[in-house]
């Protein structure tokens, strides 16, 4: 079975993989958002997602170490390492104290910061092509990247919150602030808008208008949701 999911939050992804395993589906492979599952006994495996220090590879040291602990490396993707262990071998957690958990989330945050900067550069390039060179593909790119940026900024907000919580546990000094996230409706609206540009003249005008109106409603809904989310804090 193959399922498509885009996760910007590795904790949510881990939870999902473990829910699937509990239902008898063991994740066996990953490619660009597509998760491949094989049938297993219900609750046979526990999954965890690690963040390595090399692209698409782990050191021999790491491999050996995990093997010894009865942990199987299912897949590496970028810096991500998806691991699993038989549930019969006991509880499986990767980071069990605040210090190591914080180091882990900080590594992930650094990666998201780099991605966000790269996406922003991409946004400017696409804006240039859209406005100056009058290439409509430029606008398609603008809205796609806009949607990705919403995901990245939300991921950074969540990571900051997790790191702050762990810092609080370590030094006992209460920090302030709560995560401020952007409504995902905005991202969906942006994507839909790029779709309407992409289909262009290929469909009757009224279909395009409907898609565009829907996109605008979603984007405004997203902005409103984001604003309301802030007021509640």
């Amino acid at each position, binding site marked *: 079975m193959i399922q498509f999911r885009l996760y910007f939050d590795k904790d949510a992804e881990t939870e999902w993989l473990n829910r699937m395993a509990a239902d008898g589906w063991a994740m066996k492979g990953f490619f660009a958002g597509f998760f491949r599952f094989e049938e297993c006994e219900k609750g046979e495996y526990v999954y965890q997602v690690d963040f390595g220090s090399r692209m698409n590879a782990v050191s021999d040291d790491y491999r*050996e170490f*995990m093997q*010894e602990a009865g942990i199987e490396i299912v897949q590496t993707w970028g810096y991500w390492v998806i691991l699993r262990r038989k549930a019969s071998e006991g509880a499986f957690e*990767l*980071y*069990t104290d605040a210090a*190591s*958990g914080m180091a*882990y989330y900080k590594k992930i945050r650094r990666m998201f910061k780099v991605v966000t900067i790269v996406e922003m550069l991409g946004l400017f390039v696409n804006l240039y092509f859209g406005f100056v060179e009058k290439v409509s593909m430029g606008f398609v790119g603008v809205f796609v990247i806009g949607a990705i940026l919403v995901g990245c900024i939300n991921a950074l907000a969540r990571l900051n919150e997790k790191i702050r919580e762990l810092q609080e546990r370590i030094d006992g000094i209460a920090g302030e602030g709560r995560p401020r996230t952007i409504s995902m409706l905005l991202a969906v609206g942006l994507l839909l808008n790029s779709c309407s540009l992409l289909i262009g003249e290929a469909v009757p005008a009224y279909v395009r208008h409907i898609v565009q109106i829907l996109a605008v409603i979603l984007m405004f809904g997203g902005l409103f949701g984001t604003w309301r989310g802030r007021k509640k804090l």
Partner: protein
Amino acid sequence: MAEKECPLTEAVYYILLAVRKPIHGYGIIQEVEQLTGGRVTLGAGTLYGAIQTMQKKGWIDIYSVDTESRRKKEYIITDLGKAVFETERLRLEELLRNAGLMRDAQGK
């Protein structure tokens, strides 16, 4: 130098204690679990990261890698690691000594 590293995290403290004798990675997890009566279970990521860091700092060393007989990689504490542990032990003793003040205050 050793003073700067203290206080140690609980994980680092117990890992240093576990490598007083040659021991392999998974053995450390089991040893620490036993020493603490199951209270401290080191996660694989926590332990792996700590071992890497402690090796870099020169607190622990690789004791044996015998690939032919498929023996597991074992770790052993270094003199520097022992010095760090001793500094931490002194600090903990001070904490406990001072804890007596609380008991005295409640006794009266």
